[in-house]
């Protein structure tokens, strides 16, 4: 198990900036969650559609197996449903959601047994194996190779760097948000993200 990885469920500090362009306005998620808490099932549907793909990919990147990701993904949303009564409007829903996800991942691997890298890729996932390059046109092959290489590089990152990168990309979390979800200091989160990008740059040098 990677000794530097946070093994405990972590605390977060909602309200941080979520910096990616195109994200929904702050407050919308929280209003929707409050509406769901009041019994509005349609509000949950909007929330779910908005966050399901980033959350799924976050879980998948961290566990590396579709079957495990499916199980955890469903469990995470079930817990969101269960925890709705305790949800406070002032808490960022996104941070709340990804904190639950991270807790579930940590918990899952704890139950699997110590001595393993909590967020490491486990085995090969057949569904993640790309199509044969020879079956595709050249430009698609090129693009495919790029994306394959990138995803392989991401999986090869140290767990905490991978987590920082994926949270940044999928959840749209800025450094402060990553620090909150992972329970580390701002500088630590910042350096994790920076090192992740550095490794990816080096690995993709021929494409950049």
């Amino acid at each position, binding site marked *: 198990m990677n000794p530097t990885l946070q093994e*405990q469920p972590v605390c977060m*500090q909602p309200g941080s900036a979520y910096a990616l362009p195109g994200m929904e306005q702050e407050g919308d998620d929280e209003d929707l969650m409050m509406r769901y808490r009041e019994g509005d099932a349609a509000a949950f549907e909007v929330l779910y559609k908005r966050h399901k793909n980033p959350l799924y990919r976050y879980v998948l990147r961290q566990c590396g197996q579709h079957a495990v990701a499916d199980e955890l993904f469903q469990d995470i949303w079930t817990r969101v449903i269960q925890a709705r009564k305790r949800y*406070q409007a002032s808490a960022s829903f996104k941070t709340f959601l990804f904190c639950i996800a991270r*807790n579930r991942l940590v918990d899952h691997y704890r139950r699997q047994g110590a001595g393993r890298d909590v967020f490491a890729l486990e085995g090969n996932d057949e569904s993640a194996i790309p199509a044969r390059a020879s079956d595709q046109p050249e430009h698609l092959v090129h693009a495919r190779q*790029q*994306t394959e290489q990138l995803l392989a590089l991401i999986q090869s990152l140290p767990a905490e760097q991978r987590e920082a990168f994926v949270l940044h990309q*999928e959840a749209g979390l800025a450094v402060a948000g990553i620090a909150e979800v992972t329970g580390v200091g701002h500088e630590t989160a910042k350096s994790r993200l920076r090192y992740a990008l550095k490794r990816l740059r080096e690995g993709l040098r021929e494409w950049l």
Partner: protein
Amino acid sequence: MVMKQDDDRIKELYRQSATEQPPAHLDDAILAASRKAVSAKCPRALSRLLRSLTLYPRALSRLLRSLTLPRPAAPFFGRWQLPVSLAAVLIVAVLLVPLLQEEPHDVGTPGSSTVMPYNADVSAPSAIMHQEVAVPKKYKARTRLETQAASEEAEQKQGLLLKEMAGDADVTGVPDQWLERIELLVDTGAETAAFAELQEFKRRYPVYPLPPGLEALWKKDR
């Protein structure tokens, strides 16, 4: 500058690469569960209506009269209209009490759980609390809903809950609050941490009754 461009290129490449989605059957299952969860309970709006009616018995009486005896045409009904209405009011009020008590309380209620029926070791270390909290630590007032709903009482309640959530409050001396906190850990996916706290709770309060969810966790993990 070049580095920034490279990073942007990597991010763009990632956005193109990351196309995985959860399977459709999971979508269906989760959305069905979300609907079931809110339809199973008495809607909060209805709960509020019932509460207001109990606060205004005359209005309730009128409502019941209009519902139960819409047309008191016969003299018999005319004679019994008032006593029947009053009896109905009493019966409904008695029936409503448990309903209103079941209404989910959203935040920690200091008043309701400050009684300490057992000798609690208040000075016990709370390190486990500080390590294993799985929920937001710091909150900022941000939403319209919160602004509208803010009242002194609500803020007090929220403040306590947030302290509990953050692990800033040592709730180990108050069994109900401690249990609520453990439930929160379970809700937010930190089951192992919840069980660790539950073990500590059972060590200190061996005969204190557990809520059904925690009872199940206790039996399951033992």
